[in-house]
């Protein structure tokens, strides 16, 4: 596993100059040593992955079984017209690698389903939900809560979007929040909505990984782009939830002893345990 260092290279000090004041070398090292799964490389996934790559998250696993189609291009800004027909993970990883040559990217052009979810969530510190259906979201939610990994939920439709940070042992899980999954649809969507929610998710991810700021725990951020307004809804766990009910084992927090709510001391002495 990657061992944290005490200083940055000259390249990194220059590259991350504008964010170091927020979390210092220590925070930057937490990002470099982090392994993040971006589940879905579409409207949300392209935005989140771009910001996480630029910020120096050391390892990104991109999972998406789709190829780029022309209707993706109204919002999936990592892709170009010449990418039509290519595997999304291949096109995205190429673009992300050129954004930040110093990180590692793993492109997995496979479907996330109940056969593959265990394998694809192995050796990961944090999961970003950039999926387009709740069936798969619920699978990821179960995996996150079994493995005790933070899960940054995001969803969009038209001018509207939502996001929340789900932490096993601390917050509601997705099953407590969203009881039922809607039927699949070809949903209307614009770039700006993906931009807002993707950026919120990327911000949440770096807050959890660095321990800075206050993540959206037990809070659902709801964006109404139609009028230009964000709202927070305070949400609660279901104590009888089949996934997370009764789980208040705060000693088994994700990412070693980090408690994102404390927003302070982070100990990443125990690298990811790969449960």
């Amino acid at each position, binding site marked *: 596993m990657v061992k944290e260092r005490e200083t940055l290279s000259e390249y990194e000090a220059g590259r991350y100059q504008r964010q170091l004041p927020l979390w210092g070398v220590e925070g930057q090292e937490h990002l470099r040593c982090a392994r993040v799964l971006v589940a879905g490389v579409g409207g949300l996934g392209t935005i989140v992955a771009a910001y996480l790559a630029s910020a120096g998250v050391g390892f990104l696993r991109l999972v998406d079984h789709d190829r780029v189609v022309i209707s993706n291009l109204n919002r999936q800004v990592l892709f170009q017209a010449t990418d039509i027909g290519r595997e999304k993970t291949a096109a995205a990883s190429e673009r992300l690698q050129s954004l930040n040559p110093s990180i590692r990217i793993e492109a997995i052009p496979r479907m996330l389903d109940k056969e593959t979810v265990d394998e694809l969530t192995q050796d990961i510190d944090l999961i970003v939900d950039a999926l387009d259906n709740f069936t798969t979201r619920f699978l990821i939610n179960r995996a996150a809560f079994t493995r005790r990994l933070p899960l940054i939920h995001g969803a969009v439709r038209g001018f509207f979007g*939502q996001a929340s940070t789900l932490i096993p042992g601390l917050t509601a899980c997705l099953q407590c929040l969203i009881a039922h999954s809607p039927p699949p649809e070809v949903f209307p969507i614009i770039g700006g909505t993906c931009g807002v929610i993707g950026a919120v998710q990327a911000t949440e991810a770096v807050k959890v990984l660095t321990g800075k700021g206050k993540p959206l725990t*037990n809070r659902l951020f709801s964006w109404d782009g139609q*009028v230009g307004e964000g709202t927070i809804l305070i*949400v609660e766990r279901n104590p009888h939830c089949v996934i997370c009910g009764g789980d208040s084992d705060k000693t088994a927090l994700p990412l070693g002893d980090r408690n994102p709510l404390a927003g302070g001391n982070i100990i990443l002495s125990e690298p990811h345990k790969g449960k």
Partner: protein
Amino acid sequence: MIVTVRAFADYREIIGKDTELVLAEGKTIGDLLAELGDRQPALRREMFAPTGELKEFINIFINGRNIAFLNDMGTPLVDGDTIALFPPVAGG
């Protein structure tokens, strides 16, 4: 009793952002939604199937807890409750 209904996403367009309603004691969330549906047929069409049942994928929270984990449509309301109505937002 007075309860507040906060509507999100598409529902906001139909009934507005925040609505305060006066209800008789002992009413349930089901009663509230029926009342809202009466006032605003567009909402009823969005939220209810022709059979009169709430569409399965709509998420309703009372004070932050999804009614699916309370008593569903039979969950009683009390004075001061805040009800949040969320249509499905599932894309990515």
